């Protein structure tokens, strides 16, 4: 009945030192995080993230992977003293994930907020490279908001959606796969090169499609699944699951980003509500994902298990029309304006894509990038395997406004923006006010010196005069909002006063 839901976005940035492809990405990523944290006055040692409740090997299907049988890359809760890992005043986590700096946005409830705090991550990445560049003797480090190097490696942009535990996982899998296979036409970021190592010349809709190998699974780095079953709710586990979505591309354009999370939240809502009854399962979904991605003309068809043959747009229309009926049936939306915005833009983009793909330039990442590439091809007669087109694809996602090509288009007014630069700037330091991120981020701002560690579901204080650490669990994502604890946080003269206030029932 609504687009509203607890959700958040994670972005792993590509990282490189110009002229030095062998530079150690883990070390560089650590520098990126540390330099930003230091400038903000935030401690960045490894112990500042509280891993007490983390359980990356728990599987949504109900069993737990044996630690011995896990690939080392799956053990995300192992502490490494060389890696920086911080909670920012906006409630986000900024840390080194394997060989990339990762920004995990604070929890938000609405798609516009998801885009706002995602773009704040890009601004923080930019500030980080600026700070590094200003260090004497430091080689410049560049960050890219993309998902592949075009040479066989991919790194993720993950979405997280809180769902009630009671929703049956098989229902989620059945109804979500056809949606995920086809939503790339709306929110794909576009890519030069076909195949994981760009062996084939050409352009495709998605950065990520070629890296997926299976339908359902726990892994994120090998045998990537369309539906990832990692089930760490970072919340009361009996009540919630966190759906961890790994199939999306990193978006730079607001409308595509808004639709990515907004339409997914609506589809999840329909699944939770039992509104989707028909089976739209696609035959051989992994192959379908890739054939759709490889056809920017949007004519590629997939076969449903019921025998119908459809384009990706047709399948998206099925979901849009189901959502429209669902919203008509249920008149209890607390965020009708936000829901209407998503529905209106979804319909507008699908309609435009059906009539004239290029009419989505400035709205949809893959179309906007394609328009630029086609401009170069037409002007200079470039074939798809020309290095200049591959260079445009990479430089497209550079976080620096003077170098990033999407930034150049934005500065020329060629993008349709929903979020203002002022909103992005504010979101770099201010948490969303309607989730526990308000408590987490404000604790870091007000009492940073006494915050011993923090995580999605806890803040641990080292209180002067106390021999033991004081842990404040924040297991309910909608508790700890500005309305609930804002006054207490601002009026507490010190941490001891804050803890006394939290312990006193209101």
């Amino acid at each position, binding site marked *: 009945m609504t687009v509203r839901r607890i959700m958040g976005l994670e972005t792993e940035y590509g990282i490189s030192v110009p002229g030095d492809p062998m530079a150690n990405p883990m070390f560089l990523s650590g520098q990126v995080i540390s330099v930003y944290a230091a400038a903000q006055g935030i401690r960045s040692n490894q112990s500042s993230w509280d891993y007490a409740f983390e359980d990356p090997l728990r599987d949504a299907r109900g069993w737990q992977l044996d630690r011995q049988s896990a690939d080392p890359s799956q053990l995300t809760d192992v502490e490494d003293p060389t890696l920086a890992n911080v909670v920012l005043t906006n409630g986000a986590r900024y840390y080194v994930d394997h060989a990339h700096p990762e920004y995990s946005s604070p929890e938000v409830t609405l798609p516009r907020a998801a885009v706002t705090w995602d773009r704040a991550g890009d601004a923080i990445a930019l500030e980080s490279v600026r700070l590094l560049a200003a260090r004497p003797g430091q080689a410049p480090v560049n960050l890219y908001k993309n998902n592949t190097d075009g040479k066989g*490696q991919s790194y993720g942009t993950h979405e997280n959606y809180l769902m009630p535990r009671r929703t049956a996982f098989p229902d989620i899998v059945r109804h979500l796969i056809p949606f995920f296979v086809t939503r790339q036409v709306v929110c794909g970021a576009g890519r030069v090169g076909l195949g994981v190592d760009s062996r084939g010349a050409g352009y495709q809709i998605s950065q990520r499609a070629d890296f997926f190998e299976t339908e359902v699974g726990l892994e994120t780095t090998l045998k990537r699944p369309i539906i990832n079953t990692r089930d760490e709710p970072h919340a009361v586990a009996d009540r919630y699951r966190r759906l961890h979505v790994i199939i999306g591309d990193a978006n730079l354009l607001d409308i595509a980003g808004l639709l990515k999370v907004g339409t997914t939240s609506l589809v999840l809502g329909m699944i939770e509500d039992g509104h989707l009854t028909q089976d739209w399962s696609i035959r051989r979904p992994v192959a379908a994902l890739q054939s759709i991605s490889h056809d920017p003309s949007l004519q590629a068809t997939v076969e449903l298990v019921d025998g119908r043959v459809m384009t990706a747009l047709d399948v998206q229309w099925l979901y849009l029309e189901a959502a429209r009926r669902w919203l008509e049936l249920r008149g209890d939306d607390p965020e009708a304006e936000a829901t209407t915005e998503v529905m209106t833009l979804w319909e507008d983009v699908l309609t435009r894509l059906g009539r004239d793909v290029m009419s989505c330039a400035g709205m949809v990442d893959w179309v906007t990038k394609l328009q630029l590439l086609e401009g170069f091809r037409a002007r200079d007669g470039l074939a798809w395997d020309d290095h200049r087109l591959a260079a445009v694809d*990479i430089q497209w996602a550079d976080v620096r406004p003077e170098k990033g090509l999407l930034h150049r288009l934005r500065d020329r007014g060629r993008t349709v923006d929903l979020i203002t630069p002022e909103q992005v700037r504010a979101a770099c330091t201010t948490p969303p006010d309607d989730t526990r991120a308000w408590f987490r981020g404000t604790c870091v701002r007000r009492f940073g010196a006494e915050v011993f560690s923090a995580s999605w579901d806890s803040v641990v204080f080292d209180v002067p005069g106390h021999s033991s650490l004081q842990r404040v669990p924040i297991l309910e994502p909608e508790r700890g909002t500005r309305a609930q604890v804002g006054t207490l946080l601002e009026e507490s003269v010190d941490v001891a006063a804050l803890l006394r206030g939290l312990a006193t029932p209101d």
Partner: protein
Amino acid sequence: MPGQEHAKPQRREDEVPDAPEAPPAAPAGAAVKEGLTDDIDSVLDEIDGVLESNAEEFVRGFVQKGGE
């Protein structure tokens, strides 16, 4: 296909002398479209200025480790 390679510059040469005589009475939609096309050319010109000059080396140097 040499014929194709010649086609583009020839068309451009043809268009230039025509341009001043073209009546400015085109419908609004066409004007917008023409404006956008011109703008793309100037976008390309600007991007020429910021694009890494050695594209091949730049692309080769962008090597990432897997993530997630």
